[in-house]
């Protein structure tokens, strides 16, 4: 067992998955650079190739500011690489050996061969054979898919540690559950993807999807479908550290992410217990329930704070 002391565990801010206007995007990352206690920050457009030019406008400024603040900066690639244009985008990133890159599709994995890279949560790493194969081609960190349970996470964390690679688990935010060629944001507005008018920009945390009974269910973010409930693995962090997980991903939501990051940092450093962090987090995220079902081997939407209490060592 390669346990990680919670105080040594790192926090990663995942790539912003939503279509925020350039100014808001820049202000968000600048504040993260100045104030958020995270070790690494991901940039880049993961969801929709049509947004790439919008995002690119501010990326250079954002990266410079983050690096000056001492953050590691990782460029995340597209979730669904469908054509030569998508592929060229990844190849352009790969051409700069100074960049750290997270591959979110097998095309990205293919183009990263032989250089250190991160395997994103949208690449299917379900077992230690796959993990070892990808590590052999240069993967140094594995961000695990959302649906893994505690036992799977423990096996993969041990396998990664044995190969000198890191493991990261998605600990906060709406979970990416599916990706499609079709844009559901456009469809809900009676539009096609080609003439989408960038309607995804209207929903900074994703578009609410309810059941016919009015029960909150999912969030649509363009071609991506996310959970409505917000993942929160506060109560499971200590157990994951003991199992060798050394990094936790926080997905950007339209909430005070500096405060969210501070809560997770305080908990890992022993200044807050999981119950306190959980309560404070609920006040920061009043618009959706929490979920931790996948970790406990149940339906992902389940939330079970009681059975998952783990004291920090």
């Amino acid at each position, binding site marked *: 067992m390669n346990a990680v002391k919670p105080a040594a565990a790192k926090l990663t801010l995942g790539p912003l998955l939503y279509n925020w206007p350039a100014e808001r995007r820049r202000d968000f990352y600048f504040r993260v650079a100045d104030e958020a206690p995270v070790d690494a920050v991901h940039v880049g457009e993961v969801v929709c190739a049509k947004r790439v030019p919008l995002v690119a406008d501010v990326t250079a400024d954002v990266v410079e500011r983050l690096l000056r603040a001492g953050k590691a900066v990782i460029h995340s690639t597209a979730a669904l690489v469908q054509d030569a244009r998508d592929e060229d985008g990844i190849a352009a990133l790969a051409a700069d050996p100074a960049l750290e890159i997270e591959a979110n599709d097998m095309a990205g994995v293919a183009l990263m061969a032989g250089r250190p890279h991160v395997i994103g949560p*949208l690449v*299917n790493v379900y*077992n230690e054979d*796959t993990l070892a194969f990808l590590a052999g081609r240069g993967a140094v960190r594995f961000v695990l898919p959302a649906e893994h349970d505690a036992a799977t996470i423990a096996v993969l964390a041990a396998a990664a540690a044995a190969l000198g690679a890191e493991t990261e688990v998605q600990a906060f935010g709406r979970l990416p559950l*599916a990706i499609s060629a*079709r844009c559901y944001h456009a469809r809900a507005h009676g539009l096609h993807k080609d003439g989408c008018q960038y309607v995804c920009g209207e929903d900074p945390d994703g578009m609410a999807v309810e059941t016919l*009974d009015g029960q909150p269910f999912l969030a649509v973010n363009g071609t991506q479908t996310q959970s409505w409930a917000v993942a929160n693995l506060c109560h499971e962090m200590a157990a994951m550290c003991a199992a060798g997980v050394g990094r936790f991903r926080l997905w950007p939501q339209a909430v005070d992410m500096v405060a969210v990051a501070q809560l997770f940092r305080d908990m890992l450093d022993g200044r807050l217990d999981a119950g306190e962090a959980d309560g404070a987090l609920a006040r920061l995220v009043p618009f959706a329930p929490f979920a931790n*079902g996948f970790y406990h081997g149940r339906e*992902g*939407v389940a939330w079970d704070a009681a059975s998952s209490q783990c004291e920090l060592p």
Partner: protein
Amino acid sequence: MNAKPLELVCPAGTPAALRVAVDAGADAVYLGFRDETNARNFPGLNFDRTDLARGVAYAHGKGCQVFVAINTFPAAGRPGPWRSAVDDAVRLGADALILADTGLLDYAARTHPGQRLHLSVQASAASPAALRFYHEAFGVKRAVLPRVLTVDEIAALNARVPVETEVFAFGGLCVMAEGRCALSSWCTGKSPNRDGVCSPASHVRFERRGDEMMTALGDFTIDAVPDDRPAGYPTLCKGRFVARGAAGHLFEDPTSLDATAVLPALMKAGVRALKIEGRQRGRAYVVQVVSAFRRAVDAAATGAPVPRAGLAALQEGARGTTGAYEKGWR
């Protein structure tokens, strides 16, 4: 035009379905073992080892190939069932294995170097770089393409990749990139990737509410239909949900894929094989669809008009779509 006909790859959910598919003109049948190693792990379906040996003998006797799908993602710490599925399929004479998991592809390529490997749609490889990777790393000969590409994109892809391509022609339509969808798992804890099931019957409820029949998956209502209409199976992405204040089929209408209208275009795009979905379907369905596609594929090969008879009644909601093959779908 007299081109090499598209190869017709047909579903064999049971030994009986295998025999009728072979007799109706399948060039190949695909099937899975009766466990979590394949993506149609439904009660009453699939093959044990003895069934496979008999099925291979029957198919080979009539010049038909047998592909074995081992296309879920092996569980961490428990590779045994998946490795033995690979070993047994090879031993029993499978013409190709249809695999999705990188680690399992690596195992198969190292352990059985001569074995023909196909890439499952569950691997979601939609780009030249991804397909070249699977070919170079594991010697994959053919890839089943995700249902996200237009015919034009498929043509551009085929010009750039060292593998044959197989595309879906008929049957249930996934609207999400296959192998990358955790929606069923989110509601039920059962996942296509791990368990080989989507929207499993064990978590389905039908409940009467006034003059409507409500269908649910786990704790979530998927649809509600008036009594005078049949309540369909609550497959999550085919349900009706509320977004922007309006209820509707947010992800996909209750249609099923029918690519007969684009068969000549798919041939011209360089596609090698057509896949018919439906291992969960009965013999009568298999006979009708395979026979109709046998006629369609043979007609397309001679440049004759493609006959469309007899398929409409077999579709979900009795409405066909060419899905992602046409750009407007997006």
